[in-house]
């Protein structure tokens, strides 16, 4: 009984703050509402007996990704730029088509979704997930790590103000002697690019 109350309260929180992301015109308010919505989703993961993923949701999404969003919003100083209003035809078509899509989705979920409760206990703590991940999913895990490295390099190249050619000639000048020890070829390359 208490879990139903928790479910409905946090479902309402998630939906209201998600709607705030769409409806509010200030992107900082939108980002903070999205953080609140992600916290409510972490509560949903706890209710679904996945506490490890709830912790990951709070740490990775609410802690890392949304802080990145907030940094970029404040770096670009977007508050002083009023967002122009959307064209009425785009607004009308967007709202009606997404409402139709959502109603169809909920209708088919209510009609064909699974309704019986799962039997037995489902253990999904960090130990179980970790053992399965490092046995069966070790290759995708390594692929994801390479993807993250590529994303870091891509973000550095895309957001750098100076071009590659300006630092190409003098690599020694562009590598300041900061905390990096005598670097491996890969890290010197990324420093050069930046």
């Amino acid at each position: 009984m208490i879990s139903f109350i928790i479910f409905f309260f946090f479902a309402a929180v998630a939906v209201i703050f998600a709607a705030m992301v769409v409806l509010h015109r200030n992107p900082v308010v939108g980002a903070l509402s999205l953080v609140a919505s992600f916290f409510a989703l972490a509560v949903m993961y706890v209710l679904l007996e996945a506490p490890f993923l709830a912790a990951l949701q709070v740490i990775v999404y609410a802690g890392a990704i949304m802080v990145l969003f907030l940094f970029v919003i404040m770096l670009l100083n977007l508050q002083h730029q009023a967002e122009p209003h959307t064209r009425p035809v785009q607004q009308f078509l967007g709202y009606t088509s997404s409402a139709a899509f959502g109603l169809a989705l909920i209708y088919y979920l209510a009609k064909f979704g699974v309704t019986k409760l799962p039997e037995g206990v489902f253990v999904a703590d960090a130990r179980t997930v970790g053992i399965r991940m490092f046995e069966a999913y070790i290759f995708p895990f390594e692929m994801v790590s390479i993807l993250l490295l590529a994303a870091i390099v891509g973000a550095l190249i895309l957001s750098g103000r100076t071009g590659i050619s300006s630092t190409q000639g003098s690599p020694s000048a562009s590598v300041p002697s900061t905390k990096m020890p005598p670097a491996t070829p890969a890290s010197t390359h990324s420093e050069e690019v930046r």
Partner: protein
Amino acid sequence: MIPTHWFLILSAILFTIGVCGVLTRRNGITIFMCIELMVNAVNLTFVAYARQFHQIHGLIFVFFIMAIAAAEAAVGLAIFISLFHHRHTIDVDEANLMRW
């Protein structure tokens, strides 16, 4: 214990809000946040079905989706910073260099 289809319906509502935001807003970063909202709705579906069928693969997929969303956020925000440097706006209607 809460039935699975309630979580699925909540996930459908969140996904629809995300679709609505992508279709009606013009601020690039807001559109990006709505994409994150849709990714989270799909994550909720994965976790709900993982509990329903006692499959731990769904949780591992959610882990990978979170890592990929982090990479996507890094690259996408870098693209918006670059766009802001060139156009001094992040209105996606202004980014029409490759339209015609």
